[in-house]
């Protein structure tokens, strides 16, 4: 169909709707776009996202539809593959917005695709929720863009609170890679949060190294000489085993804490026994989950024979938040631009949404304030320990 024919058809439909004069009556279905990677290097992320989104839609449609104001709608998913590429994600979003006339977009997942796509959605005034992108730039200065996960820096205060409440420690040591954005940012946010709780100078050792280093004995000896009660190290799975094992070999037997970058099966494989009993913060934990989270995991497992990853859980929540916002509009007009604006305004006002990855409220920036999950490494597995709120 050419563009002109498309516009003609749209004009005709609009004219008919106007002629019919049915007032509050709009279309019978609501279209939601999914901009996800079904091929390419993170294809598995897309597969999980699609499953979670389809489960949500089946739930709603199976129960008769979504009640918005005084009308019931069926939900229709329009799925576009972004090939794990930034440019394809932008093209897919443009198609969803202009050609498919979706009400809102869920996705893309990785920050690499979500950051440029956010710009397109913002320009076209279409609400977008990225379930999984943690880079601050995705939502920065973009009123139309939201996300369902917390930001990288957010874990700093979360861990500071958790360690204080659970262990009552007051003196912290931090070891991080000064040459890598994620650990460096997180280490600084943790330090700030810890000093806010326990006063200036309560981070007694703030040590760094650079990417590629393998010997941390000097930094760890310095930490040993300080009177730190624990170590916080927001590093990746390849450094965590090195740090933990070297700390133990130097006779440091205090607890060591980390962040969501620990949450890779490789951590367990490379670290083995040495990491038993350690804690880190993350989005969600499948092992040991309770309540609605457990219900979701069980249903997903029954249907697909696999345990859902954090991206599936976050997509489920992103869909849930979006549907909630659509309901909160109190009725759709059928004018897509006005409806999109109404949905955006409602998204921005979401407060205390009970998701399976925690309770969320959106900030001005479109980032959720939500609780994180603390995972304990136990029996060679990542197990749910408890939830911590900032």
């Amino acid at each position, binding site marked *: 169909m050419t563009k002109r024919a498309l516009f003609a058809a749209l004009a005709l439909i609009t004219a008919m709707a106007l002629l019919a004069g049915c007032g509050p009556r709009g279309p019978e279905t609501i279209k939601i776009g999914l901009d996800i990677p079904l091929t390419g290097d993170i294809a598995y992320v897309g597969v999980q996202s699609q499953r979670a989104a389809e489960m949500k839609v089946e739930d709603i449609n199976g129960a008769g539809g979504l009640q918005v104001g005084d009308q019931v709608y069926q939900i229709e998913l329009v799925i576009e593959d972004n090939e794990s590429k930034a440019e394809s994600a932008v093209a897919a979003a443009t198609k969803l917005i202009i050609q498919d006339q979706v009400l809102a977009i869920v996705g893309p997942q990785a920050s690499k695709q979500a950051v440029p796509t956010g710009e397109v959605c913002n320009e076209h005034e279409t609400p977008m929720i990225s379930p999984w992108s943690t880079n601050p730039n995705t939502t920065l200065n973009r009123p139309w863009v939201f996300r369902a996960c917390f930001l990288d820096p957010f874990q700093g205060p979360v861990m500071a609170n958790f360690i204080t409440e659970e262990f009552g420690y007051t003196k912290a040591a931090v070891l991080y890679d*000064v040459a890598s954005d994620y650990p460096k940012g997180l280490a600084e946010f943790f330090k700030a949060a810890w000093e806010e709780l326990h006063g200036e100078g309560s981070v007694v050792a*703030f*040590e*760094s*190294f*650079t990417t*590629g*280093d*393998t*010997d941390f*004995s*000097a*930094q760890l*000896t*310095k930490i*040993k*000489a300080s009177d730190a009660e624990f170590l916080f190290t927001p590093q990746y*799975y*390849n450094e965590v*085993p*090195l740090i933990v*094992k*070297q700390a*133990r*070999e*130097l*006779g440091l037997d205090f607890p060591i804490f980390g962040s969501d970058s620990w949450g890779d099966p*490789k951590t367990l*494989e*490379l670290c*083995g026994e040495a990491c038993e009993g350690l804690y880190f913060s993350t989005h969600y934990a499948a092992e040991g989950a309770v309540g609605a989270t457990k219900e979701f995991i069980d249903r997903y497992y029954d249907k697909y024979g696999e345990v859902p990853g954090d991206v599936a859980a976050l997509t489920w929540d992103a869909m849930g938040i979006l549907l909630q916002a659509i309901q909160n509009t109190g009725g759709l007009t059928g004018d897509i631009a006005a409806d999109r604006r109404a949905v955006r305004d409602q998204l921005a006002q979401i407060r205390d949404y009970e998701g399976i990855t925690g309770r969320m409220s959106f900030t001005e920036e479109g980032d959720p304030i939500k609780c994180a999950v603390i995972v304990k490494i136990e029996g060679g597995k990542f197990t749910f320990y408890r939830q911590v709120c900032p």
Partner: protein
Amino acid sequence: MSFSIFMQYLLNALQWGSFYALIALGYTMVYGVLLLINFAHGDIFMVGAYIGFFIATFLLGLVGGALPNWVILAITILGAMVLTAGVGVTIERVAYRPLRERGAHRLYVVITALMIGIFLEYLNLSLLGAADRGFPELISTTIYDLGGVSLTNTKVLVICLSILVMIGLEMFLRSTKVGMAMRAISYDRMAVPLMGVPVNTIITATFVIGSSLAALAGIMFGSAYHVLSFDMGILIGWKAFISAVVGGIGEIRGAMAGGFLLGFVEIFVVALGQIPGLEFLSSTYRDLIAFTILLLILTFRPTGLFGVARRQKV
């Protein structure tokens, strides 16, 4: 800084310096004989560690439990040293010797060495993937606490083995024919071949020794740090090369001294921050200060600690 903490830093520095020294030996030996900076040497260290990983894993699967682990470790070290020596010699035969025989300028051989290094890294990456490997724990770590100083059996083994190897190498160079030929070539590479010394055999021997020492360092590294990755040889290789230069490249004792010196400087710069008044010196400044010290050494002794300035005849 209390005495026990100081001793702890000292032990850390000895272990870390051992790795630099063992790798620096390979750089300096090849340079002594060939005037070639073998930039692939850091990656030969990586290859040695991986060969050791595969031998150890294979043996553990085959006879694990039947043989005590120290026997497996000994076989792993010997096997990896032999195989890595083969890799080193092959590289010399395939990549460096043809260039040398065609009379290529040394610069081209150095560039070839850089390329071989990158080739080895990406060969590993494409064959084994980007995922890191965990080196099997052949010696289960025991931690000794000596009045606040923590010591592991691995640490003792690393330090002792590297010191033994260096003494052995020094004896080899002093008292065997091949060793004397190596020193002779590095002393005068025009006259010595004319005296009937088989240069190519001596070069091969140099690569055998250098590569097998790198393999030993690789296995020690695997035992001490447990994690192997395809790029593990890059940074440590560069730093070992720098320590070889600071020690005086071409000089065996220089490589040892340079290696331990760099290890000490890196560890103790971090420790500086504990001295009252120097608290602002965080570990972030480690490399900056460490390499400033090395630069200063080279400014005052451009040929390195043990290097002797040699006049070139035109």
